[in-house]
C-alpha cells in the first residue's frame, strides 16, 4: 500500500526538518503506524524509500525500539511497573487491567480492541501508580480506577484519547500541577505529536 497524498505531504515535511534524510527514519516509522494502525513490511519499505536506506536497515532500526509495534490493538494500555509504581501497588493495577479486559500483559485482545503491556518508568513517579493510554498519561491510579478506565475504553471506544480527560475521569493525584487543559490527544497507539497523528478538540 502506498501512502495517501496527505501522508506523503507530512512525510516530506518531516524529512525537511533534518540535515540528513536518514534522521527521519524514527518519525516516519510513527507516520507508517498512523497510516495503517501498526507497522507493516510495506510501511517499512516506504520509510526506507523516503530515507534512502534498505528495508533491512529500517527493520534493524525499528526492531530496536519498543514503541514500533507490528501487532497492536486499537488502543494501547501501558501500566508502569518500575520502582515508584511498584512501591505503591502497580502489580495490583496491572492485575486489575488484565482481569477486567481478559488480556494478559503483553497481549492483544482477539477482537483487536486493545493491547495491554507493562512498561518501565514513564516519568510519572510522583503520581504513582501511573498508566498511559496511547501514551497519554493518567496518574494516581488504583486497581478499581484502572478497571473503570479499561471498561470505559472497551465500552466507548473513544476516537481521541486525551490525558486531561483520563486524569479527570479516572486519575488521582498527579506528579505536579498540569496547568491548563491540553486539547490535543492521541488517535491511535502511537504518540500524539505533530505530524504523526494528533487531534485537537
Amino acid at each position, binding site marked *: 500500500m502506498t501512502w495517501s497524498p496527505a501522508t506523503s505531504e507530512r512525510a516530506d515535511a518531516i524529512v525537511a526538518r533534518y540535515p540528513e534524510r536518514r534522521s527521519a527514519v524514527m518519525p516516519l516509522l510513527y507516520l507508517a503506524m498512523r497510516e495503517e494502525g501498526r507497522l507493516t513490511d510495506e510501511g517499512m519499505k516506504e520509510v526506507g524509500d523516503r530515507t534512502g536506506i534498505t528495508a533491512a536497515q529500517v527493520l534493524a532500526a525499528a526492531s530496536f525500539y519498543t514503541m514500533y509495534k507490528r501487532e497492536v490493538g486499537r488502543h494501547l494500555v501501558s501500566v508502569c511497573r518500575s*520502582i515508584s509504581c511498584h512501591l505503591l501497588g502497580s502489580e495490583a493495577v496491572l492485575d486489575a487491567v488484565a482481569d477486567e479486559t481478559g488480556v494478559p500483559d503483553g497481549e492483544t485482545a482477539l477482537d483487536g480492541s486493545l493491547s495491554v503491556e507493562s512498561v518501565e518508568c514513564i516519568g510519572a513517579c510522583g503520581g504513582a501508580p501511573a498508566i498511559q493510554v496511547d501514551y497519554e498519561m493518567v496518574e494516581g491510579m488504583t486497581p478499581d480506577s484502572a478497571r473503570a478506565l479499561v471498561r470505559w475504553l472497551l465500552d466507548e471506544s473513544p476516537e481521541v484519547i486525551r490525558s486531561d480527560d483520563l486524569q479527570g475521569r479516572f486519575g488521582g493525584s498527579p506528579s505536579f500541577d498540569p496547568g491548563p487543559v491540553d486539547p490535543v490527544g492521541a488517535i491511535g497507539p502511537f504518540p500524539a*505529536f505533530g505530524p504523526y497523528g494528533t487531534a485537537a478538540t
Partner: protein
Amino acid sequence: MTEQILTTRMDAHPSDSHTLARYEQTGGYAALRKALGMKPEAIAEEVKASNIAGRGGAGFPTGVKWGFLAPSTPRYLVINADESEPGTFKDRQLLERDPHQLVEGIVISSFALGVNHAFVYVRGEYPRPARRIQAALEEARDAGYLGDDILGSGFSLDVTVHLGAGAYICGEETALLNSLEGRRGEPRIKPPIPAVEGLYAQPTIVNNVETISNIPWIITNGGAAYDAIGPEGSRGTRLFSVSGHVERPGNYEIVMGMTWRNLIHDLGGGIRGGKELKCWIPGGASAPWLVPDNLDEPITVQACARLGTMLGSGGIVVMDETTNVVAAALSLVRFFAHESCGKGTPCREGATWLERILERILHGEGRRSDLDLLLDVSDNISPGLRWPPAMTTICPLGPSAVSPITSIMTHFRHEVAAMVSGEVPAGV
C-alpha cells in the same frame, strides 16, 4: 539568597507559565537580547564561571564540556529530554510548564557555541511535553527569537524536536546520537567524544533539559552570581523528583547543601501513614541507596561521593519500613536487564542473571549460595563493587544494575539471608 531559578514562573503563574506572553511579561527573552550583544566566547566564559554541572546524570561541568567543542562546522547542540531513569520526572515538568525557559537557553547556548541547528530529543512516552516545547518553538519563531537573523543579530537557528521510541539507553549521549541518525540506539565507544565527533560525525554538545534551562538566568545575573549559590562543588539549585512512600511527592527545586532530612521530611512531608523511613535512592535507579543514618548529611555532590553514591538524575525514591527490599531490588534490576542494549556481554548476561537470582529468592526458592552469587555476578559487571564504578561494560548501564544489589547486601543482608533460609516468608 536565591532559592528558586527554574520554577518561579510555574509556581507564580500556574495557568499560563508555558506561554510566550507570560514568559515575556516575567522578563523572558531579555537574557537573549543581552547575549546577542555579547561575544560568543564571553557567554561561554559566564557559563564556565557559573560552575554549573550537567543535570542529566554524569554531572560534568558544562563550561568545560563546551570548551571541548572542536572548531569544524557545522556543529550541533542536542538537548537530552529522554528522561527515563526510574524515579525521575523533573524534565517533564520543565518541558510542560516552562518550555520558553528552555527555548531561550537553547538559542543563547547555540549562539555561544556557533550552532545553527539544534535538536531536542524527547522520549517517545512524552508526547505532551513534546507538544509544549514544539508550540513554544513556534511562538518563539513568530516573535523573531528563532529562525533567520534572530532579532536583527545576523545569527540564525533552526530547532528540530525529535521523538524517541521507547529505549532507556537512548538517554546515553552517544546512543542518543545514533538514534537521532535513524539507527539502533546503541552506545558508541568513546573516544571520540561527541564534542569532537558527534551527530553526523560533526562536533556536537549534548546537554540535559535542566542544564540548559539555567542558562538564561546565568546570562541575566552573571556566572559569578550562580557560583555564589550553594556550597563549593555543588553550585546552584537542583530540581529533585521525590517519589515513593512520602506524603507529598513532587519536584522540589532546592539549593544544594540542604539535608536529606529537610528534603524528605520537611518538603516531602515525611513518610506516608506515619511509618518509619527504611532507605531511599538518592539519584535515580542507578544510584546506591542511603539509609536513615545518613539523614543529616547535606545533599551535595561531595557528600554523596563520600557515601559511595551520587545525585545522578535527581530522582529520589523513598521506601518505608514495610518495604520488601528484595522485591524493590528486583524491580530495579529487571529494569536494567530489560534496557540493556545487548551490545556488551557482562551487562546483558550479568543483569539477567541478577534478575533470575532475585526472582528465585523472592519466590522462596533461594539457595544459601545465592548471597555470594549475587555479589560474584555483580563483581563481574562492576569489578571491586566501588562507586563510582570500575567498568567492564561499554557504558555505565551495566554497573547501574549492580547498585541495588550492593545496596541490599550492605544494608539489609540479614533480610535477604532470612528470606533464603525461610525464616521470613518470601513473596511480594
